[in-house]
């Protein structure tokens, strides 16, 4: 599979031909710096766009058109990549080759996809007010129900505490306090701003070729050619941790305490140490053969899950475990000991080889899924160091024990966050 690229105005189009799938996939990423001023508007905008276009003025009509396209799917979401805020639009449509009805579907799907992004339902210089009010209500409810998912809540609290002074501390869905200020006019004017300033990347994966796609995209995304060309740098500021590490404990009516620990790795995808960090995480806590799983779960029976993950674009490593409230000391002791073991190089060659095998397997599996391929290619696009996917395998193989110890020594404990149960309920 070879990536082919062309541009339509400010839109960069990446085509990945493949005959492996029964569907064709489109992904559009709109990227902009993560800021307090824009975060809530961006969390709202894609949902407003998918709720009505000029020709399909309601969600219902858009969804009916998708049904007619043999259940094409349309999903929107927002995410953070380091200190960048992404609005993403994804569509997947059946390849008619596998249907008894062989009328072409892809161009009709692209037409609908582009109309969601470029032809919203508007009145003069404003979105439809009913749609905007409805989506504000939904966003408000989503923000308030983050509290209901305790793992997610603890993760949000940890990030806020760690990154108080950095854009990364902003929550991906924004802030409910911003909502009253945002009306259909303000949001529409922000929409125009996003089309003028965001970095725009469209990926197409499936049984397609570049020249056909060029014609179709030029036709349906023509509207973008009146917007300025731009190349937006990827925001990624290193952070110098000057304060001491923090310990935050909060209490709620929960059965299980949520222990989340944040470290600074100061290593992001563009760094030399990126692959050693992946190996570090794999030996330490990424998998079911890792030190955290073995020691917190299997040996001490303290938890059902005990794992770590890397925030690649920000340079963080997060440990997560669900434990009894009164086992806080026991669990943190084991986790810190395992970190010391890593720094001291107390892991075997076998641990290392095992982790390499699992990481390579994970990478190959990601490439089996259309959205996985897009994710990997996009990851690469964002980084200043361009590493073709086939080189990733070699990069993983090259990592030595010393590299992992070097990475381990760079890690700094930033914050320990514990969402604990009420004391009386833990005595049952």
């Amino acid at each position, binding site marked *: 599979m070879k990536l082919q690229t062309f541009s339509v105005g400010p839109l960069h189009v990446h085509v990945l031909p493949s005959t*492996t799938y029964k569907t064709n996939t489109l992904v559009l990423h709109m990227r902009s710096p993560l800021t307090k001023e824009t975060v809530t508007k961006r969390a709202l905008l894609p949902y407003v766009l998918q709720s009505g276009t000029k020709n399909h003025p309601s969600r219902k009509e858009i969804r009916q058109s*998708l049904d007619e396209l043999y*259940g094409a799917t349309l999903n929107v979401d927002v995410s953070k990549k380091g200190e960048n805020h992404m609005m993403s639009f994804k569509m997947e449509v059946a390849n008619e080759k596998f249907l008894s009805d062989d009328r072409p579907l892809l161009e009709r799907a692209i037409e609908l996809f582009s109309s969601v992004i470029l032809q919203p339902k508007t009145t003069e210089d404003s979105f439809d007010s009913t749609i905007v009010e*409805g989506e504000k209500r939904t966003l408000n409810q989503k923000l308030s129900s983050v509290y209901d998912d305790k793992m997610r809540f603890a993760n949000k609290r940890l990030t806020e505490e760690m990154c108080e002074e950095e854009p990364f501390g902003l929550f991906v869905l924004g802030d409910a306090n911003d909502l009253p200020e945002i009306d259909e006019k303000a949001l529409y004017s922000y929409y125009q701003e996003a089309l003028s300033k965001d970095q725009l990347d469209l990926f197409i994966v499936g049984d397609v070729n570049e020249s056909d796609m060029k014609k179709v995209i030029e036709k349906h995304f023509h509207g973008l050619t009146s917007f300025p060309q731009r190349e937006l740098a990827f925001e990624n500021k290193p952070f110098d941790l000057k304060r001491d590490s923090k310990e935050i404990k909060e209490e709620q009516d929960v059965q299980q305490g949520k222990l989340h620990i944040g470290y600074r790795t100061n290593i992001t995808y563009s760094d030399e140490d990126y692959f050693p960090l992946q190996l570090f995480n794999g030996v330490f806590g990424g998998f079911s053969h890792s030190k955290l799983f073995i020691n917190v779960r299997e040996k001490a029976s303290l938890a059902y899950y005990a794992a770590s993950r890397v925030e690649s674009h920000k340079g963080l490593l997060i440990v997560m475990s669900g434990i009894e409230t009164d086992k806080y000391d026991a669990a943190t002791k084991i986790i810190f000991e395992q970190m010391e073991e890593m720094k001291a190089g107390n892991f075997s060659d076998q641990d290392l080889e095992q982790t390499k*095998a699992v990481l390579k*397997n994970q990478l190959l599996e990601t490439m089996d899924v*259309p959205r996985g391929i897009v994710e990997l290619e996009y990851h690469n696009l964002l980084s200043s160091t361009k590493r073709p996917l086939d080189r990733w395998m070699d990069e993983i193989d090259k990592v030595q024990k010393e590299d992992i110890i070097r990475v381990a020594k760079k890690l700094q404990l930033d914050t320990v966050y514990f969402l604990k149960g009420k004391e009386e309920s833990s005595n049952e």
Partner: protein
Amino acid sequence: MNKVTFDQLQETLYHEELPNGLQVYVLPKPGFNKTFATFTTKYGSIDNNFTPLGEKEALRVPDGIAHFLEHKLFEDEEGDVFQLFSKQGASANAFTSFTRTAYLFSSTMNLKENLETLLNFVQKPYFTDESVEKEKGIIEQEIKMYEDNPDWRNYFGLIASMFEKHPVKIDIAGTVKSIHEITKEMLYKCYETFYHPSNMVFFVVGNLNPEETIQFIRENQAGKEFSKPEKIDRFFDEEPEGVHEKQVKIPMNVNTGKCLVGFKDRKPDRQGKDLLAYELSIQLLLEMMFGQSSENYQTLYEAGLIDDSFSFDYSGEYGFGFSVIGGDSDKPELLGERISSMVEEFKGKELNEELLESIRKKKIGYFLRSLNSPEYIANQFTRYRFNDMDLFDVIPVLESISKQDLQTALEEHFVVDTQSSQCLITPKGE
């Protein structure tokens, strides 16, 4: 070895029944890096009352034992099976449902070694008193994690409100109390009864050579001894036709309420093509009534009663069947009322044929998309196989369902008065 080709889908499925009774299926997926394999027994959380192999008396076992057994099987005399899989570059996992326990791996290398590990660890139980005790702490935390999860509580709360006797109402992992009753001896009894190859299906899908793969599994099985297959006697108390309770409310430490409405099947004894046609009919009806393209969805969304978490689903097996509709809402009570009245209204009107055709297309497209996923294929195929259905019949059956079939399913399943329950999660307030 049998070979079946599905021309329109461009898929070929290989099948063989081994002398010990194991059903083996292999589906090549050229172009994929990975291979995904599942080894599944027809034994789940509902099988808590049965005659153990070689005994005469029925035995009732503690709730959550099938799931407990799933956890413990990963432990071998030489240590942890996860370790072995990861040395071979595979990632392994397992799950227990109401009716099945499945062990699985996915890998992009060392296929034979991984197949061998999967076959061998599942067929070689090793439990000690000490390791059984140790697992209790881990599963206790798993149970507590779910107790804090409002969606899980809502779903199981709804099932418990619909069913009075049937063990589908029991939490799959059991309770903190019930798992503490589990012993090594009980685990062996369950294992011996339900893990005979004749009660199991092995499914491999991915980048592989079908002949070699089946040959390898055949030889592995030929090298092991098993007792003669015996019919397993499972017992279920008689479940009343109607729902147990009309409404249940669960106060929890949450900000946003939730509401699920359930419809319980009256005669859940369908199998084979009947069950397939019935469950696809219910799914088509749910889409027509409450899909994102429906009038009702738009109405509920605009009234502020639902958000993107709104969804619906149907689950049907031999012995129980139910559909579930709902999601987050700050007016859960009102949402429940509206869902019920919308169902009544839908039943009062003539079925719209144009809408049916459009929803039929949607379901066909969704099915095609799910064939991109080796996980979906292996898991669903096995579930279908245990109910005498065939996954590759889905499109022809979808195409054949008539308006009359839908009308019959609608009247049979969606009976608000006697067959419907509601479960609400309400914010506790501090």
